[in-house]
């Protein structure tokens, strides 16, 4: 149970930093070699530095604090390996005045390193209707 509480705190910390746009806090509990599949392109980010750079380059920013809430988080933990899945309710007002609201799926994979849980992989997406 203690592990699950710690993992929940890591993921809530990530969500809070993302919501507040605290760029230097977002990856505070991610491994340097984290592999990220994000909701928008590219296919993958290899490493925390590559993902951090995307925040400076283009990740959408909202006016003030947007919504970015983890929901229905289900955590599976065993020894030093864990994974969690749930949803993120996000929304806000972009700088062009456009409002957005979305519900996306999130999977987090973690490893316990020197007694602390760290994100080794995260996968965030929304369903896409395929052509054909």
């Amino acid at each position, binding site marked *: 149970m203690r592990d699950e509480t710690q993992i929940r705190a890591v993921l809530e910390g990530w969500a809070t930093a993302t919501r507040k746009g605290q760029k230097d806090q977002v990856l505070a509990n991610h491994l340097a070699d984290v592999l990220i599949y994000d909701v928008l392109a590219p*296919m993958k980010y290899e490493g925390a530095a590559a993902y951090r750079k995307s925040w400076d380059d283009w990740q959408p920013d909202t006016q003030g604090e947007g919504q970015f809430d983890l929901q229905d988080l289900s955590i599976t*933990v065993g020894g030093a390996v864990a994974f969690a899945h749930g949803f993120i309710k996000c929304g806000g007002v972009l700088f062009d005045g456009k409002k957005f609201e979305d519900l996306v*799926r999130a999977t987090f994979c973690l490893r316990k390193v020197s007694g602390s849980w760290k994100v080794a992989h995260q996968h965030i997406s929304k*369903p896409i209707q395929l052509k054909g």
Partner: protein
Amino acid sequence: MTQQVETAERQIRALIEAWAEAARRHDLPAILAHHEQNIVMFDLPPPLQSKGMEEYKATWDLFFKAHKPSQGFDIEELTITAGDDVAFAFAIMRCETDAEPGGFPFRLTIGLRKVGGEWRITHEHHSIPAVD
């Protein structure tokens, strides 16, 4: 890496390769052979999630319509992290369909638990990046 972890990762790699091979030949019982009844699936096309074996099974109907047994459903990159009784894997896959004969890449994350001495899939997340 301990011998136990090496063995677990080898078993999980074989399981995922067998699953992809079963999907290529549309062998539904073999596709479902290593999944838990309470599987939670985030599939590439809608819906947002599919909960439980019956809903997971139903996601394959759409796949069987779009994909023919001679077409690819191939693992291009696969990384596995295993603990004693919990593991995760993430992959870049390529799927060929009539609409996309050259195939398109997609992202896959899998969560597993060891139940009764065998690795079982409890979570799958398939996606492509959203366009907007």
